[in-house]
């Protein structure tokens, strides 16, 4: 192992040193680290709100928090987790760090705009936190009018501006990725030699570019209605509250694909690397990312089946929602097929892969229940929906984010983390997660509404189980904080390719130098080109 070479060559972590060099950096790897720190903070904040919710639901009568406090808790849990953790999580950290290296570029197309994206994220976060500290927000993360524009007296306007500003952070990230993938690929890196992670990031960026501006204007209209009396959605002045729902879900459903597509990209990489095998059906997996991104824009109406939407429009939305489930199924089957006849390691990333496969499949399939119009009448706005989207977002996106973080941690920090700690954390998260959210499917079918501060007593047992699961889940998520920081201090130096994986990022030392490559790479073989042992050319 060429450990000596890593030391004398300056890695991006210690090239220029000092706070200013970090806060004014234009290096995509450092910006990824800045994002990593900020979104981990917000993951903790969102997690605390979730803990507040779960503690309240231990007892049927709402005796821990007042109902106003509870409404603020679930609203802020939603806003913080979605806008400040899930949407930026994989694209802004793993995506920012790896995309340029994976396609052989020195940096993203617009490094300064990349830094601006982080500052806009910080600005948006500050404004939203300002809203949290003076009155909080109790409209639900969905801001439904006319409650948000007329009836709520919490600081909806400030939170609306906070979300509006944060939206531009993900627009700029998306813009950067699209231009980089189109214009900055190394010689020889054709579209079909790109890693599937890059395909997923590209598809996610399309959704960021085409969807986020619509929620920006929608949230701005709510702000204008509250602050300037412009009555867009005000029923007393002829406005239509359902129009808000159309505009809001036009972005917010594709937003859930912004959250899951990068996770799928990470999974394609991890499955290939842990089984050291070409991803099964590369082309199908790549195009299913694009299919999900594009079809994702035609299905938002399945959130409006019971909100006086025309039943004929409901038909169109329901049938296309069924179509958008097919690419996800194709991906899942392709990942499973990739592991067939692979050489599957039992190192920690495999635990996250298996966790993802189990939970994401349940999450995806429960989406079919809600896409079926007949069932949605009973299930919408119940805990069934809460369980479904948590299985996708926590079971899918966060499990993949954790897996990706573990898989690329040696590359990003140059340190190895404790394998046993990672395996324990994966198991705890898997068990805690299932104990938290599976009972909610049953609660949902029994009719327990979401966002309820107090509930009829016969549902208490399942809620207690769910809260128990939530505490196990919390421990599972806290563990990495310990062994990752421990690895930074005491971790062994990571070799260039600890997992023996294929990909341009594994050909550069860990942590990589500031400009990624000493010599510009030339690519002349397909991605995941794992050759059987005898042909390995050992220099």
């Amino acid at each position: 192992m060429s450990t000596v070479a890593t030391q004398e060559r300056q890695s991006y972590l210690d090239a220029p040193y000092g706070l200013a060099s970090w806060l004014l950096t234009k290096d995509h790897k450092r910006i990824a680290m800045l994002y990593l720190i900020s979104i981990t903070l917000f993951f903790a904040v969102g997690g605390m709100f979730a803990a507040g919710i779960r503690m309240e639901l231990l007892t049927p009568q709402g005796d821990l928090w007042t109902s106003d406090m509870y409404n603020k808790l679930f609203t802020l849990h939603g806003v913080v987790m979605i806008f400040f953790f899930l949407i930026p999580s994989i694209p802004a950290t793993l995506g920012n760090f790896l995309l340029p290296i994976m396609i052989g570029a020195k940096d993203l197309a617009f490094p300064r705009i990349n830094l601006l994206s982080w500052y806009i994220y910080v600005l948006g976060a500050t404004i939203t936190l300002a809203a949290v500290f003076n009155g909080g927000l109790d409209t639900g993360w969905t801001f439904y009018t006319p409650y948000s524009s007329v009836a709520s007296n919490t600081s909806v306007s400030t939170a609306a501006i906070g979300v509006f500003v944060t939206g531009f952070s993900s627009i700029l990230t998306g813009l950067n990725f699209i231009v980089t993938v189109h214009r900055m690929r190394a010689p020889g890196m054709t579209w079909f030699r790109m890693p599937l992670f890059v395909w997923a990031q590209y598809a996610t960026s399309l959704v960021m570019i085409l969807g986020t501006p619509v929620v920006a204007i929608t949230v701005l209209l709510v702000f204008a209605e509250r602050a300037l009396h412009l009555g867009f959605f005000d029923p007393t002045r002829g406005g239509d509250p359902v129009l808000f729902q159309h505009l809001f879900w036009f972005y917010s459903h594709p937003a859930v694909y912004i959250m899951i597509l990068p996770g799928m990209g990470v999974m394609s990489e991890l499955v290939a690397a842990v089984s050291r095998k070409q991803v099964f059906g590369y082309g199908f997996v790549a195009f299913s990312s694009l299919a999900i991104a594009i079809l994702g824009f035609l299905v938002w109406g399945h959130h409006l089946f019971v909100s006086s939407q025309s039943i004929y429009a409901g038909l169109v939305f329901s049938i296309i929602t069924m179509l958008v489930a097919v690419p996800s199924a194709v991906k899942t089957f392709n990942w499973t097929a990739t592991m067939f006849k692979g050489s599957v390691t039992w190192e920690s990333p495999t635990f996250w892969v298996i966790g993802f496969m189990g939970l994401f499949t349940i999450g995806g399939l429960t989406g079919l229940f809600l896409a079926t119009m007949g069932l949605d009448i009973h299930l919408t706005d119940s805990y069934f929906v809460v369980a479904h989207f948590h299985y996708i977002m926590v079971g899918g996106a966060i499990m993949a984010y954790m897996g990706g973080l573990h898989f690329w941690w040696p590359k990003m920090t140059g340190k190895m983390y404790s394998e046993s700690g990672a395996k324990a954390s994966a198991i705890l998260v898997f068990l805690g997660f299932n104990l938290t959210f599976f009972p909610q499917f049953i609660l949902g079918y029994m009719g327990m509404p979401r966002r309820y501060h107090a509930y009829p007593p016969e549902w208490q047992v399942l809620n207690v189980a769910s809260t128990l699961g939530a505490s196990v889940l919390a421990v599972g998520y806290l563990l990495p904080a310990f062994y990752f920081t421990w690895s930074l201090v005491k971790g062994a130096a990571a070799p260039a390719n600890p997992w023996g994986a294929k990909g341009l990022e594994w050909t550069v030392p860990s942590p990589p130098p500031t400009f990624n490559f000493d010599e510009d790479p030339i690519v002349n073989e397909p991605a995941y080109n794992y050759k059987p042992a005898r042909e390995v050319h050992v220099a």
Partner: protein
Amino acid sequence: MPNFTNSRASTSLGAGGDLESQKTMAASHASSAGLSAHGHADHNPNLQHHFYSMDQQLEASTLGMWVFLVTEIMFFGGMFMVYILYRHLYPEAWVLGSNHLNVSLGALNTGVLICSSLTMVLAVRAAQTSSRSGQILHLILTMALGSVFLVVKYFEYAQKFEHHLVPGPHFDMSLPQANQQQLFFSIYFMMTGIHALHMIVGLGLMMTILVMAWRGKFSATYYTPVEVSGLYWHFVDIVWIFLFPLLYLLGAHLGAHGG
């Protein structure tokens, strides 16, 4: 922990296969991806380190601006959606509301913006032909026309305030279908307000480009900032091209045009 050591000579991934053949093959790929021959980058002071050639930098910047303009299209698209629905639900109220708008000022503004597009494009052309004076002249003209647009806008808004046509507590409720007209004016103010904001941002952009042009930074080999801000300016003009007929000319054929 075994790993695939990479031969120091080149970081190519190929297992086996001699170096020379890879280089020639890659070079052919290089030209297709618009990169100059591998390793040899244009030596232009404005070339940023992570680009290979000025062409690649220009293409990336224009593509970047076009993708940004798509986000602006979707941004204004949200407001047009509100416009379309409420015009479908309350057609008469829309015509009544539109009759309150001053069509001549609107038409004047459209003309002003089209002229500013012309001067903008001549400014870009002046940069392409490295004529510093041309750049400065046309940039100042564009900014002047932009300011004229904003001044005319100010007068229009002043008129609306006078006639109590601003939605809110002092909206003139005696108008027929007052609530629905209040909806029309909500959309009118939101769309033209956001458009005016974009004009102001555009003027700020022009100012920075003017300063850079003054310092003679732009020439035939490096005019990306001028072209990119030109794209933005033309987009703002296109938005107004759609706003004018949809807001101002609704009830024109009914002839009842108030001040």
